[in-house]
C-alpha cells in the first residue's frame, strides 16, 4: 500500500520540477528556446530532428506533454496542421491554447514567402500561410528568439534579466555569424542549387542563391521520369552542381540525377540534430549548412 501511494505520488510529481515546461513543435524552435531560456526552462520538441515535420505521429504521449506544458511554441505557418491541432484540443491546457499566456506563434512578424495567391490543391500540397520553413533564414531566428523572450519574461519575471541577457547574446552571436556566413557563400551568389522539396526559399533569399529547381514536380508529389529529365536539362543549362536533400527524403533519386549531371548531393536538415554535427543548436546547424554548401560549390 505504501509502495502504491508513493508510486502514485511520484507519478503525479514527476512532470513539474519547478522549471517552466516549454514544448516546441519542431527541434529548430526548441533549439532557439534553449538559447533564450537557458537553465531556467525545460525544453522539449514534439517532432524529432530526423523525421518529416509535416507528418509527426500524433502519439498519445504528446497529449501528455502538451497537458504539462507552460509554453507551446508552434511555427504558425501550417507546417504542423496535420497533427498538432487535435493534440492541443485533447490536452485541454488553457495556457497553451491559441490566445493563452504560454502560446507562441513563432512566425508573427516574419515576412512569409510564397504565400499562394489562390488556394488550389491541383498545384500540390501548398501552405495557405506561405512556405513554413522560414527558420532557414537566421534573421527570422532572431525574431523568434524575441517572441520567446517576451513570453518567458512575462511568465517568469524573476528570471527576466537572465532571459534578456541570453537572447541578447544569441542575437549578437547570430549577427556576427551571419556576416561570416554571408561572406563564406558570397563567391557563389546566383548559383543554382537543386532541392528535392521546396523548403529552402528563405535560405536562398538570405544568401543570394537560386534554389528554384526541385526533384518533386509539385509539392508533396513523387518525382516522375519526365520531370527529372526536364530538371537534368535545366541543371546542365545552368551548370548547377549541387543537389540538397533533406534527411528524410529519397536520396536515391537525387543520386541518380547527380550521376547524370556531375552534381554533388549533400544531405541537409532544417533541424539541429537532423544530421551529425548539428546537435549543438541553431548556430551549429547553420554552420553545417553553409560549410557543406561552400565545400560543394568549391569542389
Amino acid at each position, binding site marked *: 500500500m505504501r509502495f502504491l501511494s508513493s508510486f502514485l505520488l511520484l*507519478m*503525479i510529481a514527476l*512532470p513539474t520540477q519547478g522549471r517552466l515546461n516549454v514544448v516546441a513543435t519542431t527541434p529548430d524552435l526548441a533549439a532557439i528556446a534553449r538559447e533564450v531560456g537557458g537553465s531556467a526552462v525545460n525544453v522539449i520538441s514534439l517532432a*524529432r530532428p*530526423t*523525421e*518529416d515535420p509535416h*507528418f509527426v*505521429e*500524433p*502519439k*498519445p*504521449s504528446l*497529449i*501528455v506533454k502538451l*497537458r504539462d506544458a507552460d509554453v507551446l511554441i508552434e511555427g*504558425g*505557418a*501550417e507546417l504542423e*496542421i*496535420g*497533427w498538432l491541432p*487535435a*493534440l492541443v*484540443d*485533447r490536452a*485541454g*491546457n*488553457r495556457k497553451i*491554447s*491559441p*490566445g493563452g499566456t504560454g502560446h507562441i506563434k513563432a512566425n508573427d*512578424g516574419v*515576412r512569409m*514567402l*510564397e*504565400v*499562394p495567391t489562390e488556394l488550389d*490543391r491541383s498545384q500540390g*500540397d501548398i501552405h*495557405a500561410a506561405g512556405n513554413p520553413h522560414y527558420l532557414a533564414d537566421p*534573421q527570422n531566428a*532572431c*525574431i523568434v528568439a*524575441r517572441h520567446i523572450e517576451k513570453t518567458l519574461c512575462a511568465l517568469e519575471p524573476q528570471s527576466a534579466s537572465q532571459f534578456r541577457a541570453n537572447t541578447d547574446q544569441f*542575437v549578437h552571436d547570430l*549577427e556576427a555569424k*551571419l556576416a561570416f556566413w554571408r561572406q563564406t557563400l558570397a563567391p557563389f*551568389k*546566383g548559383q543554382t542549387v537543386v532541392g528535392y522539396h521546396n523548403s529552402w*526559399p528563405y535560405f536562398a*533569399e538570405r544568401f*543570394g542563391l*537560386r534554389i*528554384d529547381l526541385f526533384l518533386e514536380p509539385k509539392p*508533396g*508529389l*513523387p518525382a516522375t521520369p519526365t520531370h527529372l529529365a526536364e530538371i537534368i536539362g535545366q541543371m546542365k543549362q545552368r551548370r548547377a552542381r549541387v543537389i540538397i536533400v533533406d534527411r*528524410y527524403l*529519397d536520396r536515391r533519386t537525387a543520386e541518380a540525377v547527380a550521376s547524370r549531371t556531375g552534381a554533388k548531393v549533400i544531405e541537409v536538415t532544417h533541424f539541429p540534430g537532423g544530421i551529425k554535427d548539428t546537435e549543438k543548436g541553431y548556430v551549429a546547424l547553420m554552420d553545417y549548412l553553409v560549410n557543406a554548401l561552400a565545400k560543394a560549390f568549391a569542389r
Partner: protein
Amino acid sequence: MNSYRQLIAGLIMAVGLCVVSGQQSSETEQLKQQLQQLQENLERTQREYQAQIQELQKRVHDLEQTSAGAPARLSHGQPVVTDLDKESNPGSNWVAATASSSRGSASILRPLESKDGRSYLDIGLIGTFAAGTSTADDISGGTQLGGHDPNQRGFTVQGIEANFAGAVDPYFRANANVLFQVDEDGESRLELEEAWLETLSLSSGLQVRAGEFYTEFGRQNSLHPHAWAFVDQPVVLGRFLGPDGLRNPGARASWLTPTPFFSELLLSVQNSQGETASSFRSGGGHGNADESALPLAYRHADNDRGVDGLEDLLLSPRYALSLDLTDNQVLLLGASAAFGPNSRGSEDAGSTLTQIYGFDLTWKWKSPEHHAGFPFVSFQTEGLMRRYEAGHFDWDENGNGLVDFGEVVDSTTGLPAFLARETLTDYGFYSQLLYGFRKGWVAGLRFEYSAGETADYEQSSLTLDGEPLGRDPLRSQRWRVSPNLTWYPSEFSKIRLQYNYDDRLVVGVDHSVWLQFEFLLGAHAAHRF
C-alpha cells in the same frame, strides 16, 4: 528600455545614499513618494513608447508586404543585417518574383483568415464510392453488415460526408458530420452522423462533450468510414454495434488522468433507442438485413418500456492507456463496455439488458526518418463479447392458437412457437496489420472471427413456412480474411482494392472484390492516433 532601467537604478542609488547619510525619516518618506511618482511616470512613458514602437513595427511590416520586395526588416528595433545587395546578386530576380507573389496574396487571403490562420468554420466534403462484385446472394446485410459498405454488384455510393468544425467561442468547439447516401435500391438517405459541442478546457484534464456522437467504444466505432483502413466494417462490429456504429444523442465526460503516461477515462451516457443502438432498444431486425428476415433471437422487439431512470439509458465507460515502447513504437491498450436495456421479447417480458465488453490493442511503428509518414507498420485488434438478455416471446401473437402465415412454428407440437427467456452470448474479434511500404502505398491484411454460443431457440426444431430454421446466420460462426492494397495519390485522395474470403457456417464460402475510391475537398481536421 535599458536606459530607463539604468536611470531608475541610478535614482534608487542616489536616494539610498541620502538615506544612509542621516536624513530625517519624514524626508525619506517624501523622497520615496517622489521616487514612486517618478517611477510611475517613467513606466507610463515607457508603455506609451512601446505601443508606438509596436504600431510603427506593424506599419513597417505592412509596408513590406505591399512594397516591391524591399527586405529591410526589424527585429525588435534592432536591424540585425543590412539589405541584400541586390545589384550584385544575380539571384535577385527570383527573390523579387517570390516576394511579389507573397505581396499579391495578402489582400486576397485576409478575408478568409481569422486568428492564427484558422477560419471560423472549417468545411470539408468527402466522397467515398465502391465498385465490385461478390458471389454472395445476400450482399447488403449478409456478407456486408456495415451501413456504408459496398452493398451490391456494380457501384455503391458509400457516403458523401460533409464536415463542419470550428471553435464556437472561448468555451466550446463544435463539430457536425452530415452524410448523404444512396442505398442499393437507388433511394437517397440523409444521416446525421455526429453533431456535438465540446468544452475547450475545463480544469484538471476534464472535457465534456454533448450532442449526437459516436460512442467511444474500442478503436473503430468512433472513426468515420473514410478513416477506416478497409473497405468495409468488421463483422463483429456490424453484429454488436450495428450497421452504422454505436452512436446516439447524449453526453460524455473524459478525464486525462494526472499521470506521466497517457491514461484516459471516459464515460458516455446516451439514449438507448433507435437504429444506431442496434444491440439495445432497437426495433428492427439485425443489421440492415432484409425487412422480411427474422429478427434477432427470432423474436420481435415489442418490449420497449421507455426511459424511467438512468439505467434505461446507454452507459458506456472506457479506459485507454498508451505507452511509447521506444521512440519509434507506440502501444495503446483500451477496455470498453456498453450497458443498456434492450427491447427484445413480448410486451410483458420484463427487464432485458444488454452488456457489451471490448478490449483493444493498437501498436504502431513509424520510421524515425519517415517521409510523409512512410514507412510504417501498424497492428490493431479488437475483441468483443456480448451478453444479450432476450425476453420471452409467443409467436401466436393474435392469440388464436393456430399457425398463421409468417409465424414461427414449433415442429414438435405443430403450434406457434413459444420462446422462453434466455441470455445469448456472442463474441468475436478482428485483427488488422498495415504496412506502409513506400510513400502513399499501404498493404493491409485483416483477419476476423465471430461466433455465438448456440442458444435454445436455435436448438429447438423451429420452422418458418415449412422450412427448418436451425442456427441463426447472424450469430453463428463466421470468419473472413481480407487482403487489400491502398494507394494515396495525395493526402486528399485514395484508391483501394480489397478481396474478401468469407466463410459463414450456415451459408458457405463467398468471394468478394471491391475497388474503393475517395476524394476529400476543403478542410480536414487532423486525425488522432
